């Protein structure tokens, strides 16, 4: 077992225990330990990240990735669904930042507009109307937290080890990878060009025009569907049963 695999295995184990402790289990005990464990696991993982161009880039990336991942962990570990949604929003902002950092400007703003701007607000509405504070049993407890955390983290571990194995260890020497990086062409003319939006638009309405039309139809169908599902005749309108 190589050094990197050892690190990732350790991070996986610690992360699994940490996430299990953090998940709502009907009791608040051990969340601090869980947070520490998750932090250590993330740190171990971060130690295996590769260095980028310079320290500014490194710093920006680590801040963005850290915010994203920590917010994600917070999303699944807070009881109060409203707070979950807020943390999820933060995670989204982090993701948008990562998009921006990777040069996908349009995606970054589109993610914020669509998710943070529209979807999340709607969810907040529902949450606020439905049930305040994470006091209900279904917010306080989880379904099989041990199994879930173990499965998910094993998945992450397997994926990370594979990625690291392929890219970090063989990134120096592995011919296909190096060649792919070298033959990709001048990114400043492509995905990182100044005229980003124009290129995205050309691609979107050129090669993917049919897909755009299909997606538009899908959106319309979803709109109609949602309206039909939620609408109910006035005679049936009644107060929702009292929430416990």
């Amino acid at each position: 077992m190589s050094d990197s695999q050892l690190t990732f295995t350790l991070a996986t184990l610690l992360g699994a225990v940490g996430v299990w402790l953090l998940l709502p289990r009907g009791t608040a005990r051990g969340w601090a330990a869980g947070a520490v464990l998750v932090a250590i696991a993330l740190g171990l993982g971060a130690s295996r990240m590769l260095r980028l161009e310079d320290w500014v880039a490194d710093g920006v990336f680590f801040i963005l990735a850290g915010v994203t991942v920590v917010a994600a962990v917070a999303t699944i570990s807070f009881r109060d669904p409203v707070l979950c949604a807020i943390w999820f929003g933060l995670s989204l902002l982090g993701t948008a930042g990562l998009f921006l950092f990777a040069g996908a400007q349009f995606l970054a703003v589109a993610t914020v507009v669509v998710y943070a701007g529209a979807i999340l607000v709607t969810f907040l509405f529902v949450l606020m109307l439905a049930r305040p504070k994470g006091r209900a049993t279904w917010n306080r407890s989880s379904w099989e937290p041990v199994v879930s955390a173990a499965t998910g983290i094993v998945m992450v571990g397997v994926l990370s080890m594979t990625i690291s194995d392929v890219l970090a260890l063989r990134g120096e020497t592995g011919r296909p990878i190096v060649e792919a990086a070298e033959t990709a062409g001048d990114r400043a003319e492509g995905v990182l060009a100044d005229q980003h939006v124009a290129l995205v638009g050309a691609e979107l309405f050129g090669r993917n025009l049919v897909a755009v039309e299909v997606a538009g139809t899908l959106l319309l169908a979803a709109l109609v569907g949602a309206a039909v599902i939620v609408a109910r005749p006035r005679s049936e309108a009644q107060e929702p049963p009292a929430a416990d």
Partner: protein
Amino acid sequence: MDPEIALLHNYLIVGAVLFGIGMIGFFSRRNMIVMFLCAEMMLQGVSLSLVAFGRFHNDFGGQMLVIFIIAVAACEAAIALAVVLMLYRRAGKLDVIVWQALREDNQPAFEEEALPEEPPAEPWPSLSRAGLSPEILPEETDFRSRL
């Protein structure tokens, strides 16, 4: 090492972690809306990977896919929200465990274990009616539920 390879590596790992965390949340959380958020988080992890691959290969295909993911996620959100609302109207809960009707006939339902009762929330201050001693009825402790 080529910084582009390093970037790809880092993004893929972050994407995988995001995907995994979303997955754990989807498995274990019982609030339907939180489950939905977790599903979206998984999509975000995938989107990150796609963008990174697109950048690595200097190709817009990855970004196009993410745009369509966003579109589909918006549809999904609309429908899911509608369904969740309907389910909430019918059960009065956002608990996903309520909805086990599709199990086999003679299978026992999943029973949630009894949780220890939490101490009741501190009653919020409210003004007493003029001339009366302030009396706080139990249902008045949570006046927001009537909004």
